[in-house]
Protein backbone atom coordinates (compact mmCIF):
# COMPACT_ATOMS: atom_id res chain seq x y z
CA UNK A 1 0.00 0.00 0.00
CA UNK A 2 1.34 3.41 -0.90
CA UNK A 3 -0.72 6.53 -0.29
CA UNK A 4 2.06 8.98 -1.16
CA UNK A 5 0.85 11.46 -3.80
CA UNK A 6 2.08 11.15 -7.38
CA UNK A 7 5.34 13.09 -7.51
CA UNK A 8 7.29 14.94 -10.15
CA UNK A 9 9.99 13.00 -11.93
CA UNK A 10 13.45 14.35 -11.29
CA UNK A 11 17.06 13.80 -12.38
CA UNK A 12 18.57 14.24 -8.96
CA UNK A 13 20.01 10.73 -8.73
CA UNK A 14 21.70 11.02 -12.13
CA UNK A 15 23.06 14.51 -11.43
CA UNK A 16 24.37 13.35 -8.05
CA UNK A 17 26.01 10.32 -9.68
CA UNK A 18 27.76 12.58 -12.18
CA UNK A 19 29.33 14.47 -9.31
CA UNK A 20 30.14 11.20 -7.48
CA UNK A 21 28.38 12.50 -4.36
CA UNK A 22 26.65 10.31 -1.80
CA UNK A 23 23.15 11.22 -0.63
CA UNK A 24 24.69 12.35 2.66
CA UNK A 25 27.09 14.72 0.87
CA UNK A 26 24.31 16.24 -1.22
CA UNK A 27 22.08 16.51 1.87
CA UNK A 28 24.84 18.37 3.70
CA UNK A 29 25.38 20.75 0.79
CA UNK A 30 21.72 21.85 0.75
CA UNK A 31 21.17 21.61 4.52
CA UNK A 32 18.65 18.75 4.74
CA UNK A 33 18.72 15.16 5.99
CA UNK A 34 19.85 12.21 3.86
CA UNK A 35 16.34 10.83 4.27
CA UNK A 36 14.93 13.88 2.48
CA UNK A 37 17.29 13.46 -0.49
CA UNK A 38 16.40 9.76 -0.66
CA UNK A 39 12.64 10.53 -0.57
CA UNK A 40 13.03 13.12 -3.39
CA UNK A 41 15.12 10.75 -5.53
CA UNK A 42 12.65 7.89 -5.10
CA UNK A 43 9.73 10.19 -5.95
CA UNK A 44 8.07 9.85 -2.55
CA UNK A 45 8.39 13.52 -1.72
CA UNK A 46 8.37 16.73 -3.76
CA UNK A 47 10.67 19.41 -2.33
CA UNK A 48 9.54 22.91 -1.45
CA UNK A 49 10.28 25.67 -3.95
CA UNK A 50 13.27 27.03 -1.93
CA UNK A 51 14.81 23.54 -1.72
CA UNK A 52 14.18 22.90 -5.42
CA UNK A 53 15.94 26.21 -6.21
CA UNK A 54 18.85 25.28 -3.92
CA UNK A 55 19.25 21.89 -5.60
CA UNK A 56 19.09 23.23 -9.14
CA UNK A 57 21.47 26.08 -8.30
CA UNK A 58 23.94 23.57 -6.89
CA UNK A 59 24.05 21.80 -10.26
CA UNK A 60 24.02 25.10 -12.21
CA UNK A 61 20.75 24.14 -13.87
CA UNK A 62 17.25 25.57 -14.02
CA UNK A 63 14.50 23.96 -11.93
CA UNK A 64 12.88 22.54 -15.08
CA UNK A 65 16.14 20.79 -15.97
CA UNK A 66 16.15 18.99 -12.62
CA UNK A 67 12.43 18.48 -12.00
CA UNK A 68 9.99 17.42 -14.71
CA UNK A 69 6.41 18.51 -13.99
CA UNK A 70 4.84 16.92 -17.12
CA UNK A 71 3.28 14.02 -15.19
CA UNK A 72 1.37 16.42 -12.94
CA UNK A 73 -1.12 17.11 -15.74
Amino acid at each position, binding site marked *: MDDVEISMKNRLKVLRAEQN*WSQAVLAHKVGVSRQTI*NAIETGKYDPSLPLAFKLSKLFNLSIEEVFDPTDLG
Partner: protein
Amino acid sequence: MKNSTSQDPSQSRGRNIALGAAFGLLIGGGLDLILGDTGWGLVIGILLGALAGYWIKFPLPAMQYPPHVVRRIVLSAVLFFVFLFGSQWLLNQYIGQSYQVLVALAPSIPATLLGLSIASAIAHLDELQRRIQLEAIGIAFGGSVIITFSYALMIQVGAPEVSWMFVPLLMVLLWGIGKLWTMWKYR
Protein backbone atom coordinates in the same frame (compact mmCIF):
# COMPACT_ATOMS: atom_id res chain seq x y z
CA MET B 1 28.57 6.48 -7.41
CA LYS B 2 29.24 6.10 -3.75
CA ASN B 3 27.02 3.71 -1.91
CA SER B 4 24.59 6.06 -0.24
CA THR B 5 21.44 4.27 0.73
CA SER B 6 22.67 1.08 2.31
CA GLN B 7 23.39 0.78 6.01
CA ASP B 8 24.88 -2.09 7.99
CA PRO B 9 21.75 -4.22 8.68
CA SER B 10 22.98 -5.46 12.08
CA GLN B 11 23.78 -1.90 13.12
CA SER B 12 20.38 -0.58 12.07
CA ARG B 13 18.62 -3.54 13.71
CA GLY B 14 20.50 -2.90 16.96
CA ARG B 15 19.51 0.75 16.80
CA ASN B 16 15.86 -0.16 16.08
CA ILE B 17 15.83 -2.54 19.08
CA ALA B 18 17.35 0.12 21.36
CA LEU B 19 14.85 2.75 20.19
CA GLY B 20 11.96 0.30 20.58
CA ALA B 21 13.07 -0.65 24.09
CA ALA B 22 13.41 3.03 25.08
CA PHE B 23 9.91 3.79 23.79
CA GLY B 24 8.57 0.69 25.55
CA LEU B 25 10.24 1.87 28.76
CA LEU B 26 8.43 5.21 28.47
CA ILE B 27 5.00 3.69 27.82
CA GLY B 28 5.47 0.82 30.32
CA GLY B 29 6.72 3.20 32.99
CA GLY B 30 3.67 5.41 32.42
CA LEU B 31 1.35 2.41 32.74
CA ASP B 32 3.12 1.38 35.95
CA LEU B 33 2.66 4.83 37.40
CA ILE B 34 -1.05 4.89 36.57
CA LEU B 35 -1.81 1.32 37.63
CA GLY B 36 0.10 1.43 40.90
CA ASP B 37 3.81 0.87 40.39
CA THR B 38 3.89 -2.91 39.96
CA GLY B 39 7.10 -2.94 37.92
CA TRP B 40 5.60 -5.30 35.34
CA GLY B 41 4.70 -2.41 33.03
CA LEU B 42 8.38 -1.51 32.74
CA VAL B 43 9.47 -5.08 32.00
CA ILE B 44 6.67 -5.79 29.51
CA GLY B 45 7.12 -2.35 27.90
CA ILE B 46 10.86 -2.86 27.33
CA LEU B 47 10.37 -6.42 26.00
CA LEU B 48 7.53 -5.49 23.64
CA GLY B 49 9.40 -2.36 22.50
CA ALA B 50 12.58 -4.33 21.79
CA LEU B 51 10.54 -6.99 19.95
CA ALA B 52 8.86 -4.31 17.83
CA GLY B 53 12.29 -2.80 17.09
CA TYR B 54 13.54 -6.23 16.00
CA TRP B 55 10.50 -6.69 13.76
CA ILE B 56 10.96 -3.33 11.97
CA LYS B 57 12.94 -4.17 8.84
CA PHE B 58 13.89 -0.69 7.63
CA PRO B 59 16.47 1.54 9.38
CA LEU B 60 14.69 4.22 11.41
CA PRO B 61 16.06 7.55 10.19
CA ALA B 62 17.45 9.84 12.88
CA MET B 63 15.74 13.19 13.31
CA GLN B 64 18.38 15.90 12.95
CA TYR B 65 17.98 17.97 16.10
CA PRO B 66 20.70 20.54 16.91
CA PRO B 67 22.68 19.57 20.08
CA HIS B 68 21.45 22.54 22.14
CA VAL B 69 17.84 21.51 21.43
CA VAL B 70 18.57 17.91 22.48
CA ARG B 71 20.12 19.18 25.73
CA ARG B 72 16.98 21.27 26.39
CA ILE B 73 14.72 18.23 25.80
CA VAL B 74 16.81 15.97 28.04
CA LEU B 75 16.92 18.57 30.82
CA SER B 76 13.15 19.15 30.61
CA ALA B 77 12.48 15.39 30.60
CA VAL B 78 14.71 14.84 33.65
CA LEU B 79 12.98 17.72 35.46
CA PHE B 80 9.60 16.29 34.50
CA PHE B 81 10.35 12.84 35.93
CA VAL B 82 11.92 14.34 39.10
CA PHE B 83 8.84 16.52 39.63
CA LEU B 84 6.47 13.66 38.76
CA PHE B 85 7.96 11.10 41.15
CA GLY B 86 8.66 13.80 43.75
CA SER B 87 5.07 15.00 43.76
CA GLN B 88 3.74 11.42 43.93
CA TRP B 89 6.00 10.74 46.91
CA LEU B 90 5.02 13.98 48.64
CA LEU B 91 1.32 13.31 48.14
CA ASN B 92 1.76 10.00 49.99
CA GLN B 93 3.33 11.83 52.95
CA TYR B 94 1.53 14.06 55.37
CA ILE B 95 1.30 17.50 53.80
CA GLY B 96 -1.18 20.23 54.49
CA GLN B 97 -4.35 20.26 52.40
CA SER B 98 -3.58 23.77 51.14
CA TYR B 99 -0.34 22.52 49.54
CA GLN B 100 -1.82 19.39 47.98
CA VAL B 101 -3.08 21.13 44.84
CA LEU B 102 0.27 22.89 44.32
CA VAL B 103 2.22 19.64 44.81
CA ALA B 104 -0.14 17.67 42.55
CA LEU B 105 0.15 20.28 39.79
CA ALA B 106 3.92 20.77 40.09
CA PRO B 107 4.82 18.29 37.26
CA SER B 108 2.77 20.42 34.85
CA ILE B 109 5.53 23.07 34.89
CA PRO B 110 8.33 20.83 33.52
CA ALA B 111 5.74 19.12 31.30
CA THR B 112 5.07 22.53 29.71
CA LEU B 113 8.82 23.10 29.32
CA LEU B 114 9.14 19.67 27.73
CA GLY B 115 6.30 20.41 25.30
CA LEU B 116 7.89 23.74 24.32
CA SER B 117 11.30 22.06 23.88
CA ILE B 118 9.77 19.41 21.59
CA ALA B 119 7.95 22.11 19.58
CA SER B 120 11.24 24.02 19.24
CA ALA B 121 13.02 20.82 18.17
CA ILE B 122 10.43 20.13 15.48
CA ALA B 123 10.87 23.70 14.19
CA HIS B 124 14.59 22.96 13.70
CA LEU B 125 13.97 19.91 11.48
CA ASP B 126 14.17 19.94 7.70
CA GLU B 127 10.99 20.08 5.60
CA LEU B 128 10.41 16.34 5.16
CA GLN B 129 11.07 15.57 8.83
CA ARG B 130 8.66 18.37 9.84
CA ARG B 131 6.08 16.80 7.56
CA ILE B 132 6.66 13.39 9.18
CA GLN B 133 6.15 14.94 12.62
CA LEU B 134 3.03 16.82 11.49
CA GLU B 135 1.45 13.66 10.08
CA ALA B 136 2.42 11.69 13.21
CA ILE B 137 0.90 14.35 15.49
CA GLY B 138 -2.25 14.31 13.32
CA ILE B 139 -2.50 10.53 13.71
CA ALA B 140 -1.98 10.85 17.49
CA PHE B 141 -4.62 13.56 17.80
CA GLY B 142 -7.19 11.81 15.60
CA GLY B 143 -6.59 8.41 17.17
CA SER B 144 -6.84 9.80 20.69
CA VAL B 145 -10.12 11.57 19.91
CA ILE B 146 -11.64 8.39 18.46
CA ILE B 147 -10.43 6.10 21.28
CA THR B 148 -11.29 8.43 24.19
CA PHE B 149 -14.67 9.31 22.68
CA SER B 150 -15.49 5.63 22.13
CA TYR B 151 -14.46 4.79 25.69
CA ALA B 152 -16.57 7.67 27.05
CA LEU B 153 -19.56 6.12 25.27
CA MET B 154 -18.72 2.71 26.76
CA ILE B 155 -18.63 4.21 30.28
CA GLN B 156 -22.31 5.07 29.79
CA VAL B 157 -23.03 1.35 29.51
CA GLY B 158 -20.95 0.22 32.46
CA ALA B 159 -17.27 0.22 31.45
CA PRO B 160 -15.07 1.17 34.43
CA GLU B 161 -13.86 4.77 34.68
CA VAL B 162 -10.12 5.08 34.14
CA SER B 163 -7.50 7.67 35.08
CA TRP B 164 -7.17 10.77 32.90
CA MET B 165 -3.43 10.02 32.91
CA PHE B 166 -4.17 7.43 30.21
CA VAL B 167 -4.96 10.23 27.72
CA PRO B 168 -1.44 11.76 27.43
CA LEU B 169 0.05 8.26 27.53
CA LEU B 170 -2.24 7.19 24.68
CA MET B 171 -1.28 10.32 22.72
CA VAL B 172 2.45 9.58 23.15
CA LEU B 173 1.90 5.94 22.11
CA LEU B 174 -0.04 6.96 19.00
CA TRP B 175 2.54 9.66 18.19
CA GLY B 176 5.23 6.95 18.22
CA ILE B 177 3.13 4.64 16.03
CA GLY B 178 2.31 7.56 13.72
CA LYS B 179 5.99 8.45 13.36
CA LEU B 180 6.82 4.86 12.56
CA TRP B 181 4.12 4.75 9.90
CA THR B 182 5.14 8.04 8.23
CA MET B 183 8.85 7.17 8.41
CA TRP B 184 8.04 3.91 6.64
CA LYS B 185 5.99 5.81 4.05
CA TYR B 186 8.89 8.15 3.18
CA ARG B 187 11.68 5.59 3.75
